[in-house]
C-alpha cells in the first residue's frame, strides 16, 4: 500500500489576530524516514511557531478508514482550543505499524520523525476492532527536548553538601491518554465531523452555505475567531468559517476531551497552568497530572500545601501495583522531603544570622549573597539523608533504568561518603541516560 505522509502546518500567532498563518505541505512519511536514514535533516516545517505539535494519522490496522479523521479532529481541537499562543499543528499522514524497511514502529517511529522536526509534543493513536466495538487508544508523547525544557525540576544542594543537583522529571513521557470504545454510529459521527471541519462556510452559522473544502496541500490561515467558530483562509482565495464546537458529539466529543488534555499539557508548557485529568482519562494521564501538580507545588506553594500534595502523591505508591512512571513519584516525594528539610534548615540558619524571625516584617532583608552564603553552609543530618537515599534505592529496584533516580542516588551517596555506591549509581545513571 502506498503510504503518503501529508503535512499540514498550522499556526496561530499571539492573540489570534488576522494574518496568523497555517501552512500546508505534502510530505511522504517513507521519504522523511529515508532522509533520516541517509543521515540528512528534513526541512523543518512551521519553524516560526513557538509551540509545534505533531499529530499523526491514527494507526488503522483493521482498515476502518478513519485514521486521518481521528487525527484531523484531534489536531483541530488542539489548534483552536488549547489557549496557547503561537501554536503550530503538523499533521503527519502515514502508517505507524512495523515496517519491513526500517523496523521502526509506533512510538519509535513517531520519535524519529518528531525529533527531526523538533516538535514539542506529539499525539497519535491506534484504532482496533474488538468484539465490543472499535477501540481507540490516544497517545501523548513528549520528546526528550521538551522534557528537559518544561518537565524537569532541580534542587541545587548547598555547597557544604557537595553543591550538586538533584533532578526530578515527568514520567511516563509516553502516555496512553485514554481508551475509548466507538460503536458504528459513533464512527459515523467521527467521519461526519471530520468532513465538517475540512470545509468552510460563508458565515459562522451551521445553516450558512458551504463555500469550499480546505485543500489538503496548501497553506491556510486562521484569521478570526467567534464563539464556536474560527475563520480560515488560504492564499489561493478560500476564505470561510469552520466550527470549533457542536460538530462532534457523543463519543466523538469524548475524543476531543482526550485531545483537550494534550492541549492542557501544552498549555502547561506555555504558561505553567497545571492540567487536570478528568475521571474518564487513563491512569497514566492522571499520573502525569498529579506529578505536574506536585512540581507546581514544589515551585510555588507553601510548606503545608506542598506537604498535602506530597501526601496525595504518596497514594500512588500504596496501590499494590507499580504506578505509571515507575519510580517518578518516589523520586518527587524524596526531593520534596529534601526540599522541605533544606527550607527549614535555611529558615533556622537565617534566623540565627539576623537574630530574629526572617519572615517578620521588622527584620532587615538579607542580601542575595548572604542568603546564598547561609544556604551553602547548610548540612542536613546524614541520618536523614541516608533515609532518603534508602527510599530512592528501594524505588530503583522496581524501576532500574530510571536515570534521574540513579543520578540522585549518586549525589546523595557522595554526601554520605559512600564512594562505592556513589560510583555504582553514577555508572548506572550514565548507562541508562537516554
Amino acid at each position: 500500500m502506498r503510504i503518503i505522509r501529508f503535512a499540514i502546518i498550522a499556526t496561530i500567532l499571539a492573540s489570534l489576530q488576522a494574518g496568523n498563518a497555517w501552512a500546508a505541505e505534502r510530505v511522504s512519511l517513507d521519504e522523511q524516514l529515508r532522509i533520516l536514514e541517509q543521515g540528512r535533516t528534513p526541512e523543518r516545517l512551521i519553524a516560526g511557531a513557538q509551540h509545534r505539535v505533531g499529530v499523526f494519522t491514527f494507526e488503522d490496522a483493521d482498515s476502518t478508514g478513519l485514521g486521518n479523521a481521528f487525527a484531523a479532529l484531534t489536531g483541530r481541537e488542539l489548534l483552536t482550543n488549547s489557549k496557547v499562543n503561537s501554536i503550530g499543528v503538523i499533521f503527519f499522514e502515514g502508517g505507524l505499524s512495523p515496517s519491513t524497511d526500517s523496523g521502526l514502529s509506533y512510538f519509535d517511529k513517531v520519535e524519529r520523525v518528531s525529533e527531526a522536526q523538533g516538535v514539542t509534543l506529539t499525539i497519535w493513536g491506534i484504532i482496533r476492532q474488538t468484539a465490543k466495538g472499535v477501540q481507540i487508544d490516544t497517545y501523548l508523547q513528549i520528546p526528550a527536548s521538551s522534557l528537559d525544557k518544561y518537565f524537569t525540576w532541580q534542587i541545587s544542594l548547598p555547597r557544604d553538601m557537595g553543591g550538586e543537583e538533584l533532578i526530578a522529571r515527568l514520567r511516563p513521557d509516553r502516555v496512553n491518554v485514554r481508551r475509548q470504545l466507538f460503536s458504528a454510529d459513533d464512527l459515523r459521527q467521527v467521519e461526519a465531523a471530520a468532513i465538517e471541519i475540512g470545509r468552510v462556510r460563508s458565515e459562522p452559522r451551521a445553516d450558512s452555505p458551504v463555500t469550499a473544502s480546505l485543500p489538503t496541500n496548501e497553506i491556510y490561515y486562521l484569521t478570526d475567531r467567534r464563539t464556536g467558530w474560527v475563520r480560515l483562509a488560504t492564499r489561493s482565495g478560500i476564505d470561510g468559517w469552520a466550527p470549533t464546537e457542536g460538530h462532534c458529539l457523543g463519543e466523538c466529543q469524548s475524543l476531543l476531551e482526550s485531545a483537550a488534555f494534550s492541549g492542557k499539557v501544552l498549555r502547561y508548557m506555555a504558561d505553567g497552568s497545571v492540567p487536570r485529568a478528568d475521571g474518564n482519562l487513563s491512569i497514566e494521564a492522571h499520573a502525569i497530572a498529579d506529578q505536574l501538580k506536585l512540581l507546581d507545588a514544589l515551585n510555588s506553594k507553601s510548606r503545608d500545601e506542598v506537604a498535602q500534595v506530597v501526601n496525595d502523591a504518596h497514594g500512588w505508591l500504596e496501590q499494590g501495583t507499580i504506578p505509571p512512571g515507575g519510580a517518578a513519584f518516589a523520586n518527587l516525594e524524596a526531593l520534596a522531603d529534601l526540599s522541605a528539610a533544606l527550607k527549614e534548615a535555611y529558615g533556622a540558619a537565617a534566623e540565627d544570622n539576623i537574630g530574629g524571625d526572617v519572615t517578620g516584617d521588622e527584620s532587615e532583608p538579607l542580601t542575595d549573597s548572604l542568603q546564598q552564603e547561609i544556604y551553602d553552609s547548610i548540612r542536613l543530618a546524614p541520618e536523614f539523608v541516608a533515609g532518603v537515599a534508602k527510599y530512592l534505592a528501594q524505588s530503583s529496584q522496581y524501576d532500574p533504568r530510571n536515570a534521574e533516580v540513579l543520578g540522585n542516588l549518586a549525589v546523595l551517596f557522595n554526601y554520605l561518603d559512600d564512594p562505592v555506591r556513589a560510583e555504582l549509581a553514577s555508572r548506572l545513571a550514565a548507562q541508562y541516560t537516554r
Partner: protein
Amino acid sequence: MQFLRASRVTTGLAALLGAFGVTSSASADTIVKGRVTDPTTESGVVGARVHLRRGATEVAFGTTNLDGYFELAFDFNVVPEQRTLNLSVDHDDYAANSTSVAITSGRPDSDAYPVELTPKELTRCIRRKPHLVIVGYFGDPAGRADVSQLPRTLVTGLSSNLLPELQKRHLPEDFQPTFDACPSARPSSQSYLDNYARTLGADVFIFGDVLETGPTYKVRTYVGDRHGIFEPPKTVVNENVAIMDPAAAELDNETHAYILVALANGYAQQDRFAECVDVCVAAEQVLGNAASIIVQQREYCQDRTENSGLIQ
C-alpha cells in the same frame, strides 16, 4: 536395542539390509552411532537416512530404527591424523540436518552423535530473530468455525497491543519482540509447547482451540516458553473472541501478561535483568494487578540487577 549397521564397501546392500535392521560388517572396526530425534516431541525419527561422507565419497550409510537410533560400522583407513567426516541425515517429512564427525586413529570423537530433524512444516516459520513470539495452530475441534486466519489476526492484535506497551517504557529496539504466525505448528500435546518454542527459535509459543461458539467465541490459548518457566504451559480461556470478524479477534489481557512474562524471562536469560524488570512491570500494568507469577519473575530479576547493590 537393535542397531543398524552399514559398511563402506557394501553401501547399497547396507541400505537394503538396514531396512530390516540387520546390517553388519564383520570387518568393520570404526563405529559411529547416534540418535535422530524430532525436537518438537523429543521422540526418535523412524526411517531417517543417515549418510557418512568424506568429501564426496560416501563412507557409510544406514537408516534409523523404530527408536531413531543408528549405528554405522565401517572400515576406515586408520591414520593418526584427524579426519573430519560429514554425518548427514534426511527424511521425507523433515528438513535435512548434518553434523561433523572427527575420526582419529580410527576412533570417532564422540560415543554418540545426536541429530535433530525439524519437521518441514515448521522450517518456513523459523525466523532467527531475537525475542520472537510465534502464534501457532488454532482449531475448532467441533468444526463450527473457520479459524484458519486466526493466527495471523492474533499476530496483528499482539503487535498493536504489546509493542506500544513495551515502547512506552523505552525498551531498546534490539529488545523489542517480533510477532509471527505459524499455523502449521500444531503440537499434539500441550506438554510440547516449550519444545515448539525452542525449535522455532521463539521465546514464546502459543496455540489454542475454540471452546464455545456464539455471537463471539470462547477461545482457549496455551502459552509455552522456550525456557520452561510455564510448566505446565499456561492455559487461558479468552472470552468474547470475535472470530467471525477476523479483524476484531484478539486475546485477553491475561494472555498478554503471560507473553510479557515469558519475554521478560528471555531477557533474564541474557542477563538483561533491568529490561526484565521493566517488562514485568508492563505485564502488571496490562493485567491491572500484581499476579504472583509476574511478581516472582520481577523479584527474580530485581535481585539480579546491579541496582540491588544500591541497597545495603
